[in-house]
């Protein structure tokens, strides 16, 4: 029996020493980015998938168990995960990943945020005080976050510093080349007016120079109502949109209704890695997003 306990303890400590950096990412985009940078030196657990509304996740037991073992927690931040992450952090018994510790990384802190509300009032819906948290759909932000994340990973795991820096450099040069391609491909999208389901695409539209002329949600986080959708139809005559966008995790009904009434295409965008079959990684995410937007334009 004693031997068994000893074996267990040895087994546990060996198990802990195996992966150099255990990363808990709240959303797929940052989990994939950490994997690009860390390669074989990191073990990434991603808490959510592209089919889940990142605002509405529950503090599941499996998330607590994973957060307990993480060295680095990567969150989107700006209150995106406020409904579940604070609880996971506190109940994880993991001091390394608490807010303010090096093991807690918030992506939004490293980019220029858009849509920070001037007044904070829930009468405006589920607003994010720190600005719109869906920052990853501007590829320039991905690079900024990647750079900061590399610095953080080096800080936490200095032994693998060279590997992380090399990983980031390789990713960054591939990314810049890809970005030039996307910008060239997306040229026809400039100035195109669109409707969106939720304000999930603010950074994407800003990057591509597209125009959001309305949202299907009357207020952020409030389900589309028939009255509000009818109002959008009226506005369509004055300020016509060319297509209506939604993310994989959003319900198809409202955008299909608008599309049916107006004849504009309802475009499903992957939103994050795994959102469509083509969006297998971060490169695929942007390839597919731009292809789908261009197809919507035809």
């Amino acid at each position, binding site marked *: 029996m004693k031997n068994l306990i000893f074996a267990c303890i040895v087994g*546990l400590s060996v198990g*802990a020493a195996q992966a150099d950096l255990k990363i808990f990412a709240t959303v797929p985009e940052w989990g994939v980015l950490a994997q690009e940078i860390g390669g074989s030196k990191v073990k990434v657990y991603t808490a*959510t*998938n592209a*089919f*889940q*509304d990142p*605002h*509405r996740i*529950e*503090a*599941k*037991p*499996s998330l*607590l*168990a*994973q957060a*307990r*073992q993480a060295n680095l927690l990567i969150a989107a931040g700006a209150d995106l995960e406020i*409904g579940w*992450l*604070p*609880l996971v952090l*506190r*109940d*994880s*018994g*993991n*001091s390394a990943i*608490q*807010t*303010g*510790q090096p093991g807690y990384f918030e992506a939004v*802190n*490293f980019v*220029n*945020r*858009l849509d*920070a509300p001037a007044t904070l009032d*829930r009468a405006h*819906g*589920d607003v994010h005080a*720190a*600005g719109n948290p869906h920052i990853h759909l501007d*590829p*320039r932000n991905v*690079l*900024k976050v990647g*750079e900061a994340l590399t*610095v953080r990973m080096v800080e936490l795991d200095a032994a693998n510093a060279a590997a992380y820096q090399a990983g*980031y*450099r390789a990713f*960054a040069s591939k990314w*810049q080349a890809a*970005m030039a391609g996307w910008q060239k491909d997306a040229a026809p999208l400039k100035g195109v007016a669109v409707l969106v389901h939720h304000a999930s695409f603010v950074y994407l539209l800003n990057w591509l120079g597209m125009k959001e002329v309305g949202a299907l949600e009357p207020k952020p*986080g*409030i*389900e589309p109502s028939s009255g509000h959708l009818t109002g959008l139809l009226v506005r369509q005559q004055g300020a016509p949109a060319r297509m209506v966008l939604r993310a994989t*995790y959003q*319900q198809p009904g409202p955008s299909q209704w608008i599309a049916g009434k107006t004849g504009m295409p309802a475009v499903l965008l992957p939103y994050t890695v795994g959102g469509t079959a083509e969006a297998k990684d971060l490169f695929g995410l942007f390839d597919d997003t731009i292809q789908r937007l261009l197809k919507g334009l035809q």
Partner: protein
Amino acid sequence: MQKSIAMAALLVASCGVNAASDADLAAIRAQIDEMKKTYEQRIAALEQKLAQAESPANTEKSAPAPAASSPSVTRASAFNPEVSLILQGQYRNARNIEGRGITGFVPGGQGLNTRGFSVDETELILAANIDPYWRGQAIVAMADGQANIEEAWFQSLAIGQGVGLKAGRYRSAIGYLNEQHPHMWDFSDAPLMYQAMFGEDAGYVQDGVQLKWLAPTALFIELGAEVGRGANFPGTDRNNNGTGGGALTVHIGDDVGVANSWRAGASWLKTRASARTADFVEQVGGGAAQGRFTGDSSTWLADFVWKWAPQGNPAHQSFKFQGEYFRREERGALTCTSAVDCATPIDSSYKTRQSGWYAQGVFRFTPQWRAGLRYEQLDSGSRDFGINAGNLVVDSYRPKKASAMVDYSWSEFSRVRLQIAQDKSMLGITDNQLTVQYIMSLGAHGAHKF
């Protein structure tokens, strides 16, 4: 003539000036050129810097400059705790029953007998990180003329190794529903089981210390131990050193595929009672009697929760099943006092073994609408009052209740609920209840437990 001389003089003079300024001008020009050059160089350098900063290609820079887009606000109030307020109230239709309780179970307080319109306790919640090591939270439940400290605790943030320490007044981690506040319940009232176990507050609150440990495994395994004052029903407050109650809990949980998550648990609660008073009826005289219990109370709980959502996204559609079972044993002494049967107080032994369970399912069929069913049953079990069995009426009964609810949420922060229930918790009485309830959350509303 004079005019021309003057003109000539003027001309000569101006020529002199011209001759003098030509040399100066050259110098000035040179200076200006020099300045222009340096400025151009500077501007070029600045432009280059700007281009570097603007382009995403500034990858070789070592320090990430966090570009804060919103101006940093410095206010003294910025460190204020997160504040939220829960407004809850209802309209209720039910039979008027004097001394509402649960037949066969010792009441832990007055039963709910409010009818018509009423406002529940208004909960004020204050929470904040105290420093890098601790977090604190207080919940004050306010009602007419009173403010009760529902919870007031601090929790560790920096121990690590999966250890969590909580001290103060907290809702015990036993069972599933016990840690949840009424505004998180899926029905407008607590299950009979919780009312029978803990009285009208339907939850066990402990003044003490709680230690939890989360195992470093992919399977969620959480062990907990609590010791405390044990002042609440089924225990009583005592003037003693040491502890009056304690609990042990174990919870496990995991996901099954991407769509399912579950948690199961077993808990044990031990409390001590000293002269815990309950109302009885005299066996012979038929009048009111009082029984004072002194002894130990042990409660075992088993709890299980299963949640399903298509692709793990509960925003549009989800299903939640939850069930709990309890068993309680109490051993000690009973003192009977009454007008006839126990005109002089009579002491006896006291031994009970009681149980109960509930099961409920709640289905969210659109983002805003949910519907649920709950069924519950208790068993008054064996109640051995020794010689006082001849003095007090000992009821044997199996209370039952069935409830159905439907609720609508405008947003995550507002909900209204309609509930109908058939309550057979009292012998010979069928009470059909109708409740219309609202729950509104104001302010910084914190995350909910699984």
